[in-house]
């Protein structure tokens, strides 16, 4: 293990008001050479966690170990960490090249090598042509890329990146994400970054830590989060559009879903799912897994939106709404009836009270 967070706690005391627990007993182990995303909505504790690792924030409890040594009592500069933080400003009097190379303390002999590295990282991030300029003359996106370059040019035990691509020009994002991911892999960097953007987490991270209200909800690869979400929160938070969640009761090997207006419909459960007769459950199914065009179920098309490379179809089944995604266009205008099916191997079952996952595709979590 490279970075180990154990029982990490952060409580903010507020004058005259109850304290806020931003991070609660967080345990996380990051492997050498791994890229990990801390993903969550604002206020989930992801940024507090990153700031504690960097040393910008004291710990209320717990410990942080990096490459075998305890770093949380050390000042930021002695932790062996390279970072790009939002608002961690570039030095205004220095050029972009000087900013990027600033932390590369080098002897005269190494100076040529250092400037080659600065150039290579700058070219990867498409700022090779503005190395001589000063920060004030750059756009927000260019400043963010310069700040990212300053972190990535360094060799360090750990790289910390705070929303590394949030300001980036949209037309550059896909290519730069690809290049940065390849670069992190080639250099074997251990990286922790914070983001609220699923696309960015997906693209850059080997594993994603989903946080909510200071608690780690799940830590796993993008595939694990998609196929084996630990609970209903992760299931409906991760994925776009969100997972369909239908409440029903187990009846004779099937889920009987209440359609809301007295209507009921029945969906066969996976044979291996051990759900007791009469149990109330939540059936989850990803929009990408709803099979449109044939099947025992039927809904009325509420909307059918073609988004360039995929169709999003919303169906009404009684008072329920089910969203399906198809990679091909769907020839079903609003108001028409469209048959669909949910296959047993695409079902996720959850406990309606605790939200805990009971089974995925017929097997236990």
């Amino acid at each position, binding site marked *: 293990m490279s970075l180990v967070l154990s029982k990490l706690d952060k409580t903010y005391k507020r004058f005259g008001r109850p304290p806020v627990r931003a991070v609660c007993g967080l345990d996380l182990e990051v492997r050498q050479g791994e890229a990990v995303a801390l993903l969550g909505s604002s206020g989930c504790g992801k940024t507090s966690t990153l700031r504690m690792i960097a040393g910008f924030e004291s710990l209320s409890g717990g410990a942080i170990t990096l490459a075998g040594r305890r770093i949380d009592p050390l000042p930021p500069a002695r932790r062996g960490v390279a970072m790009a933080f939002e608002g961690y400003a570039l030095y205004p009097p220095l050029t972009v090249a000087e900013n990027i190379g600033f932390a590369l303390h080098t002897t005269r002999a190494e100076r040529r090598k250092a400037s080659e590295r600065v150039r290579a990282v700058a070219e990867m991030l498409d700022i090779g042509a503005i190395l001589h300029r000063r920060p004030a003359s750059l756009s927000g996106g260019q400043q963010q890329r310069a700040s990212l370059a300053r972190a990535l040019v360094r060799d360090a035990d750990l790289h910390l990146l705070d929303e590394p691509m949030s300001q980036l020009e*949209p037309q550059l*994002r896909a*290519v730069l994400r690809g*290049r940065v*991911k*390849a670069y992190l892999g080639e250099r074997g960097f251990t990286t922790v970054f914070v983001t609220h953007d699923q696309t960015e987490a997906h693209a850059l991270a080997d594993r994603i830590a989903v946080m909510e209200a200071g608690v780690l909800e799940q830590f796993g690869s993008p595939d694990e989060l998609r196929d084996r979400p630990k609970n209903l929160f992760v299931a409906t938070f991760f994925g776009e559009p969100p997972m369909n969640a239908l409440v029903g009761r187990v009846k004779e090997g099937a889920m009987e879903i209440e359609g809301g207006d007295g209507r009921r419909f029945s969906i066969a459960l996976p044979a291996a799912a051990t759900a007791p007769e009469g149990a109330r459950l939540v059936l989850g199914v990803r929009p990408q897994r709803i099979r449109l065009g044939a099947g025992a179920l039927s809904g009325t098309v509420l909307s059918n939106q*073609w988004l*360039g490379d995929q169709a*999003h179809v919303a169906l009404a089944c009684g008072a329920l709404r089910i969203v399906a995604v198809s*990679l091909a266009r769907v020839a079903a205008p609003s108001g028409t009836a469209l048959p669909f099916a949910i296959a047993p191997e695409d079902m996720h079952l959850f406990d309606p009270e605790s939200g805990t996952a009971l089974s995925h595709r017929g097997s236990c979590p």
Partner: protein
Amino acid sequence: MSGLEISDIRARFGHAEVLRGIDCRVAAGETVVLFGPSGAGKTTLLRAIAGVEPAASGVVRIDGREVQDLEPEHRPLGMAFQNFSLYPHLSAYENIASPLRARRLRSQEIEVRVRRVAELLRIGHVLGHIPRELSNGQKQRTALARALVAEPPVLLLDDPLRNVDAKLRYEMRLELPPLLRKTGAAVIFVTQDFREAMALADRVVVLREGAVLQDAPAEEVYEAPASVPVAQLFGDPPMNLLSAHLVPEGNRVRAEAAGMAPSFADLDITHLERPFLGVRPEDVLLASRPAGGAHAEILAVTPLHDRCVLLLRAADGTELVASVTGAAPEPGTFVSIAGARHAVLFDPVNGHRLAISGARTEVAA
């Protein structure tokens, strides 16, 4: 014509021309999405239509009547903004009622209309709360309700979904089109998100540097961008733009780049050198085995739900992005580029679209 018609809208801040003569028509019941990067002039245009932009000039007609000389409060339109702009000291009810109070409606009539629009937007249960007590989603619905309540013939919605969480934004994307259609208003909806544009728009107007680059149905903007800047702005990941080599072939012309060679008809190439070949990532056709064809190295694999975005380096050194479904290939391996399903050719000098090749995806279901 009923609806909104604007012509030759101009605005100048000092020496900067922020709107350079905008013409646009929005029919009653139609939703036009105003799409563009930040600084394009989108908000200034809405402000000009609303009459709150002193620097603007031009003609604004609502239902055939010229309103540009009317004070803002006398223009029959409703507005909602990304920062909600609710009165902080008034309840949600009073916020929504404010345009009706300004028109001195009887309080009985006001109550009926506020309740009706609140039901439609599912905020009936929080009407007594002040903005501070509302979630971001409820604030956004309150602002929307206030814009809708007076049933104005024109609605101006300035990126109203920007500050709400992903789940709600997604829900509103499904709910808004039928809701807006029901109001029968001419709607201008501002966004920087191309999927939101495709989901909501009857027509998309692409704005950049104060000028309209394209005004067409959303699918047309996606499949046949009018120019290189539109191709770069509309889509994520954006369209690949590759410098192509032209090869005449009977009365057609092949445009070769990165192993693709789509053919175009009716193209005068006498003065044309190295045009840009535009291919959407999902239209890059790959063959799994590098057999014949053009080899490309997979530099990085960035997964996204059921798709994978690949950063490729073609044999000629060009970088391009391909989006594929199914199992993720390994970075560092090779694929062959088999062709392009759909491609657009652009003039290298002025950036204008020259020709289109190929067909788009088939219709399923």
